[in-house]
């Protein structure tokens, strides 16, 4: 891990980003003089030391939250609505995004950050729509964090007054804890995953404001109780909004687009 800039994921690769996390480099998060890399570790002088207690009261994720707060500030200054799309692998995030982009790109300014452990496949799928996208590869990392997204913004440069979709690493557990500075987490659950996912992975559905129930075109072939699924989601999060969609057939997508338009409008007046 690079202890200079606080990047926990030493293997992270951001497309087009030359910034390598070596100790002692000049870092641009305003903490360039915090050079922890220089052997604080073994400066222990026996005999001289005396134990004492230090009260801290600081969140474990406080570092991530600082990066997320900086991103959030940037989003609000630039009128960017940032949405963090979270789900298990293969729920249809990229399919949903490419369809949404094709349907909305004439009326809204859009861009995408793609998070996957490996490959730039998803960013390439997005770029085929003509909208700009940047791939972050987390290597073994199982989630995006505020710091990676901050760096991605420097390269991607989303336009003012736009919507930024951040497709998180496919994982129903870890991304829940890491704020990226987004306005909302949107959880995508596909009907092939089973209706009990909201209570099996409660943290994610607790953290999301909207759940898109995807692949509803497959319902005739499955035993999936939609009502039960929604009830489970509301157990974990009484306020969660739910929409049923099919990213391939297009069914229900207009509701999602209306939500996007309305949420974008609200973000402009700071709600």
């Amino acid at each position, binding site marked *: 891990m690079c202890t200079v800039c606080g990047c*926990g994921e030493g293997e992270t690769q951001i497309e087009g980003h030359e910034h390598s996390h070596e100790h002692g480099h000049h870092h641009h998060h305003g903490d360039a003089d915090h050079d922890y890399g220089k052997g604080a*570790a073994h400066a222990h002088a026996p005999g001289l*030391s005396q134990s004492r207690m230090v009260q*801290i009261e600081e969140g474990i994720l406080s570092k991530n939250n600082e990066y997320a707060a900086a991103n959030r500030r940037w989003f609000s200054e630039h009128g960017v609505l940032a949405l963090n799309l979270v789900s298990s692998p293969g729920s249809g995030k990229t399919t949903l995004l490419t369809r949404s982009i094709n349907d909305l790109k004439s009326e809204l300014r859009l861009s995408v950050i793609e998070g996957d452990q490996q490959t730039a496949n998803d960013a390439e799928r997005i770029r085929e729509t003509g909208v700009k996208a940047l791939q972050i590869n987390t290597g073994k990392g*199982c989630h995006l964090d505020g710091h990676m997204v901050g760096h991605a913004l420097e390269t991607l440069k989303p336009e003012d007054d736009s919507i930024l979709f951040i497709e998180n690493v496919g994982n129903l557990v870890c991304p829940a804890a890491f704020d990226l500075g987004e306005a909302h987490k949107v959880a995508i659950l596909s009907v092939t995953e089973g209706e009990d996912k909201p*209570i099996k992975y409660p943290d994610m559905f*607790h953290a999301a404001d909207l759940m898109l129930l995807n692949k509803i075109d497959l319902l005739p072939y499955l035993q999936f109780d939609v009502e039960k699924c929604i009830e489970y989601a509301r157990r974990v999060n*009484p306020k969660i909004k739910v929409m049923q969609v099919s990213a391939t057939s297009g069914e229900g997508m207009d509701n999602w687009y209306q939500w996007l338009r309305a949420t974008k409008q609200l973000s402009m007046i700071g709600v």
Partner: protein
Amino acid sequence: MHEMSLNEGVLQVLQDHAKSQGFERVKTVWLEIGELSGVEIEAMRFGFDVVMKGSLADGAKLEIIRVPGQAWCMPCEKSVQVTQLFEACPDCGSYQLQVTGGDQMQIKELEVE
């Protein structure tokens, strides 16, 4: 699963405070982990030793203070205890609960030298 990154977060906070509060070694770390935080305690302990290796907290002891989950039940209009995010109110069975506590992951205190 993300307990590794959580421990890296702990280490960052330790390093920050080592500088500002002038200590060089950390001997014990007290964490407050709420029951609703989604943190796996065993994974946290395992990751702690691995992540702290070679740092100012190499070999430090990890003490975990568990905090029970608290929620406000809207129908009952009172605070109740829950152990999971999807649990019903133990009194009225409603799921109209708002988590009010026990979701924290905090570093409380350190023994340093």
